[in-house]
């Protein structure tokens, strides 16, 4: 993606009462630019001036300069740029006071007059600068090491709001209004399939974050088809998805419910415990596949197809399965390592894992969040990026239609969308 052209401007005075600020913002958008209000302070009394700091973004340098010239007439002046300020971390695991808190947007820091792109972009982190190389990267609070140079304050830091890609007319463009159960899902699913194909063609990794409802709703088979067709390179999940998937493989049930008939099996509630126990006895999922104990299902396919899976634990887990990482900081850090070159992320039927991964992803990674519960989708959309597309639907018909599109060819899915 081409970095947008950005300049910061400030405007002061009675810009609210005089409608100068809205006028400036309108001028920017009318000229094809966009803005981000980075700071604003509103005068308390009538006579007190207000102040706004804006980041103005335009698709080209010429357009940016035209916008700056126009808004200059209304009092918006480019700010004098400073280098970022660095402070040395005085202890492990904590930032210096006043550290710059990151967003998920593409960010640059200014060092010796040059803008340097921040690597490993992630929200709610700090920025560490290597004084020797000048390289900057996001660093999580828990990973701060004493002596690291950390960016403090706002000077010399600029975040680029994610711009729309005008050349691509895609689902992310027209489906990004408020999450709704009323949207035509067939169109959205077709576009999601296009995105996944595109990521695969570009050699980018596709990450799927999945919850146990994938199994409960009987969608495990669809998921396996996606893996076999090469549309899943990384899987993030918890103990539950793996447990119920393996329970289904070993017992034909999910939480004791027979998935082919929908009835409850005698003593079926014990199946998941017996499943975990068996896997622990053989030493883990990979061993279970190697020994022939596990012969089908999502985890089986992951092991067979070298899908890079990571299972992160939670406090209410049974067992857990040996592969489950129970230290959340360790799990978070491991997830971060696996995000390199992820170009697309599909989140299905999980709230907590989706939000956790949403927090780790930079704003430019396209995310599709599918859940029967609108509030999960809304939470993900609230990441503030239009790169997140929310689809409110049951997981099973979604995955079935997605497999139809991807595996059986474009247009194979029901033309009027899935039945939900």
């Amino acid at each position, binding site marked *: 993606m081409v970095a947008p052209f950005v300049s910061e401007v400030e405007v002061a005075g009675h810009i609210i*009462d*005089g409608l100068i600020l809205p*006028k400036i913002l309108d001028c920017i958008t009318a000229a094809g630019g966009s803005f981000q209000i980075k700071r604003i302070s509103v005068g308390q009394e009538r006579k007190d001036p207000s102040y706004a700091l804006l980041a103005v973004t335009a698709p080209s340098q010429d357009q940016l300069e035209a916008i700056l010239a126009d808004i200059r007439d209304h009092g918006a002046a480019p700010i004098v740029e400073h280098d970022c300020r660095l402070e040395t971390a005085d202890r492990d695991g904590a930032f210096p006071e006043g550290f710059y808190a990151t967003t998920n947007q593409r960010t640059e820091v200014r060092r010796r007059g040059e803008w340097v792109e921040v690597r490993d972009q992630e929200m709610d982190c700090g920025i560490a600068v290597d004084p020797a190389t000048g390289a900057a990267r996001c660093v999580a609070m828990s990973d701060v090491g004493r002596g690291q140079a950390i960016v403090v304050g706002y000077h010399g830091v600029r975040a680029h709001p994610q711009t729309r890609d005008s050349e691509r007319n895609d689902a992310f463009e027209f489906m990004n209004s408020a999450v709704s159960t009323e949207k035509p899902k067939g169109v959205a699913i077709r576009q999601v399939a296009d995105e996944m194909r595109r990521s695969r063609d570009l050699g980018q990794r596709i990450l799927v974050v999945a919850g146990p409802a994938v199994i409960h709703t009987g969608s495990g088979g669809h998921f396996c088809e996606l893996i076999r067709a090469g549309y899943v390179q990384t899987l993030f999940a918890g103990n539950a998805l793996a447990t119920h998937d393996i329970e289904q493989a070993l017992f034909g049930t999910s939480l004791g419910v027979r998935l082919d008939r929908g009835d409850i099996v005698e003593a079926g509630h014990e199946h998941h415990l017996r499943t975990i126990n068996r896997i622990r006895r053989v030493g883990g999922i990979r061993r279970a596949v190697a020994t022939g104990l596990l012969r089908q299902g999502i985890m089986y396919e992951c092991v067979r197809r070298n899908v890079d899976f990571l299972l992160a634990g939670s406090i209410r887990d049974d067992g857990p399965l040996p592969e489950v990482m129970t230290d959340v900081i360790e799990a978070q850090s491991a997830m971060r390592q696996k995000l390199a070159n992820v170009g697309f992320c599909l989140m299905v039927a999980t709230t907590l894992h989706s939000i956790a991964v949403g927090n780790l992803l930079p704003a430019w990674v396209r995310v599709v969040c599918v859940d029967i519960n609108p509030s999960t989708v809304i939470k993900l959309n609230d990441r503030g990026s239009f790169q997140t597309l929310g689809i409110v639907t049951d997981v099973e018909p979604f995955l079935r239609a997605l497999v139809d599109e991807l595996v059986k060819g474009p247009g194979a899915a029901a033309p009027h969308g899935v039945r939900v």
Partner: protein
Amino acid sequence: MTPTARILMCPPDHFGIHYEINPWMRRERPADAEAAAEQWSALCAALRAAGAELALLDPVPGLPDLVFTANAALVFRERAFVSRFRHAERRGEESVDAEWFASNGFEVERLPDTLFFEGAGDALFCGDTLYAGYRIRSDIQAHQWIARRIDRRVIPLELVDPYYYHLDTCFCPLTSSAALYFPPAFDAYARTALVEQIPTLIEVEPDEARRFACNAVVVGRTVVTNTGCPRLHARLRAEGFEAVETPLDEFVKSGGSAKCLTLRLDGEESTRT
């Protein structure tokens, strides 16, 4: 009893259309010096009759627009923010104006060299707020600079019609809560800001705006304008003002009228409650 108004004026001895810096000015349509002198004297008489006391600025050869004292400065109490004219043709007036204010007990304030500001022509108080026209003659940054110096609210208003190039050609505060204005001279944001901030706004119609109806001098409850504004005068009378007309056509040729020819030195009526 209306307090005595002090108004600065400059006799039109050297007035004329010697250059063209606004759409009204046409060198082929010169001002009649004798008629201009008569009209100027009649305006003086009308203002005195309304209770004003006049101070005079000596005319200077080669400075034909010095007669428009509204553009000499913005007066705020004992301080005079002297203009910095956008057009080179008028820059010679700046030192004459500064000298007059300095020798008449005002503290002279000079704006940074990079900013244009054309005095009370573009800056008018209504209540405790200064309304400031920008983009044609004055810069918004000049208004922001002045706002910091006087610690008052300053609302910038973008002017969009070159015929109404100064704020005082399309806006005239009458009291702290009422003003005349000609809406098409402003951009939409400025119109909205005026409507939101000023409780009583009297709209002037296009034909009377062209007669400089908004370029009015307010002394107490008397409002003095050019001739040819009968509907505005009727409205003013209905609002309890005394409306007075006096012919100023020779000055209209130059793009000015009653208000442009005056500068209130003791604070406009509209700043009083």
